């Protein structure tokens, strides 16, 4: 059977390419019993739309970020929060450990969706037209954000956060409707924000991950091929892990060579310290009780 995999990432995105690798490996390992039809670029809809399709079985697999938790397991939305993890490795340990399993179970109970695997995506960085080295550097900047918590955190740094569709962001930064924004490096590069912003600051305020979500019925349906399904998926995500390093190095070299923007290494501790109280208050209000403590108790591992 041909499984439909939807993602909002573009066809050339390295995460989508990892899915292409998986597609080949899966067909080969199951002698063509299972294959993937990948629909990239958000053609099937945004995050919420795709989750609904996954839940009803219109699509079988969805590659997305933990942002989707806001819709299907809101008590776990803090798992993609500003400075919740000390390092990328700690985040992996959380997602692949008991907390990630509990989140997956919550989604399964409520919507019939589960997390099949967790892969690397990387950090989110801040871009602006001045070096952002400490929180105060953001004071007064009109800053594009997409969710409530991020809005509160960047407001605490002194920025003026407001929403804007991604397709308008380049023009808005160019014309000064907005002064700054935050995104993963691959997005910054593919949408050419480095051309209209002079500084890229490695705030790493979010470690984000690739969640491969599947419809729970599909996992049952796989039967004996489930082992092959999971092993080929994990191999592709291992490929992705190193591919992201290469990709980031390439993008960085290209931006530096073009001279259009410089990279800054900010004092992340100052950003973290300013964000933690807001995160704590937010978690208190919107997330599962004790989640933050449970995350803090997970040691980094890899």
């Amino acid at each position, binding site marked *: 059977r041909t499984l439909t995999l939807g993602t909002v990432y573009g066809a050339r995105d390295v995460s989508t390419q990892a899915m292409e690798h998986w597609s080949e490996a899966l067909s080969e390992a199951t002698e063509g019993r299972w294959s993937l039809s990948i629909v990239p670029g958000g*053609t099937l*809809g945004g995050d919420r739309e795709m989750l*609904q399709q996954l839940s009803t079985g219109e699509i079988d697999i969805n590659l997305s970020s933990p942002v989707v938790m806001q819709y299907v397991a809101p008590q776990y939305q803090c798992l993609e929060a500003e400075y919740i993890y000390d390092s990328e490795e700690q985040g992996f340990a959380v997602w692949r450990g008991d907390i990630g399993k509990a989140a997956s179970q919550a989604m399964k109970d409520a919507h019939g969706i589960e997390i099949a695997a967790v892969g690397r995506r990387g950090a989110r960085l801040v871009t602006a037209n001045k070096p952002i080295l400490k929180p105060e550097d953001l004071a007064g900047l009109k800053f594009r954000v997409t969710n409530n918590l991020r809005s509160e955190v960047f407001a605490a740094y002194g920025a003026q956060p407001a*929403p804007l569709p991604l397709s*308008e962001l*380049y023009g808005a930064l160019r014309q000064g*409707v907005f002064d700054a924004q935050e995104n993963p490096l691959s997005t910054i590069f593919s949408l050419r924000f480095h051309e209209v912003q002079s500084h890229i600051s490695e705030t790493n305020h979010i470690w984000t991950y690739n969640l491969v979500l599947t419809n729970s019925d599909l996992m049952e349906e796989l039967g004996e091929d489930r082992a092959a399904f999971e092993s080929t998926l994990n191999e592709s995500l291992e490929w992705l892990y190193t591919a992201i390093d290469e990709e980031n190095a390439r993008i960085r070299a290209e931006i530096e060579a073009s001279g259009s923007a410089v990279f800054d290494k900010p004092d992340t501790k100052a950003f973290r310290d300013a964000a933690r109280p807001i995160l704590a208050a937010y978690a208190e209000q919107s997330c599962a009780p004790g989640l933050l403590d449970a995350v803090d108790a997970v040691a980094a591992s890899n």
Partner: protein
Amino acid sequence: MLPVFLTFSALTLITCGLMIGVAAALVSIIGGMALFGDPFGARVPMMISRFAIDRIDNFLLLAVPFFILAGRLMNTGGVTVRLFDFVAVLVQPLRGGLGYANVMASFVFAGMSGSATADVVGLGSIEMKAMRSNGYPEGFSAGVTAASSLLGPVIPPSIVLIAYAVQAEQSVATLFLAAIVPGILMAACFMAWVFFESRRLKLPAGSWPSGREVRVKALHAILPLLTPGIILAGIYGGIFTPTEAAAVAVLYALLLTTLVYREMNWKTFLAELKGTALDTATLMFIIAMTSAFGVIMLRLGLPQAMVGIVVGISENPTIVMFLMLVVWLLVGCFMAQTPAIIILTPILMPIADRFGFDMIHFGIVMAMALTIGLLTPPVGMVLYALRKVADVPLAILFRVVMPYIAIAVLFISLLILVPQLVTALPYAFGLH
């Protein structure tokens, strides 16, 4: 083969007079049943219902009701008539002066509204009346009024370009900028034709206006003349996004018609709000359902089939673009421009990708080509509108717009051959 069959079914149902939104929904339902292979399961109805919401749950599309409302307020609040009076007095001494005034007024009005019928319904009836009382031949007047209304969806703001931006994930601000030069040149082409016709038909020329007359009319029109400038300066000067610009245009039109001209009261304002709600519901339901149709065709493999067909015909990008032009002109005959661009964009994107077309250039050319369908039978919305507001028989209308259609097609061919006419301005502004 199924998606091709379904696409033809949709066009047939629409031509047979089924509501466009319902026709798209019906064919989407059948396509969905075929896609999932369980016709009576819950997946298909849930999918269609979700598409019907999510495809219009979009911040960029908010500009659509705003520009509809702004255009309506300008028409009923006395803005449009002052605008026409001013441009008419400027070109009054020329032979066929009202013909030029007709194009120029539409050009300015196009800078405030996003559609062609808004031009025909408001400005068009004023223009037809003025030309009639000055002894212009009916056919000439109707032709230039109909053709100049095409500037509405070309010159920014433009509903059809917003729809393209949403489907192709391109920037509205960049598309608006890219449409300016083609819009100006198209207006110039129409004025050149007016020049030749004025001589051939020996049209009347008016007297020289007095300086005082020009000053008074200019004073009356100065505030509305600023509207396109406010919209463009706001977007490109770093104050607001295109959607916000549309809301500001509504506010400006409201202030102008209530406080300055005092021709708008609560009753007329409410009537325009009602009209806007009805227009918005009608148009956006069609956008929602045709979007659903587009996605289902995509999942049934239509775009890949299209790439295969096109590659089989030619590998030359320019020839392929001209091939697309033929498709757009044909589709435009049967379908209104916004639903057409909503359906065609996702289907043609893989072709654009394959041949390396610039997506801004591609979008502008497609939008302009589909706009021509406003003047052709059987669906030419502008002609139907003009028949109603100016009482000119359809048979005459179809005949008098022919030369303008030819001019527009030649002009679009030029845009295909010289993409810089579209892309140079966005480049210059660093937006592309």
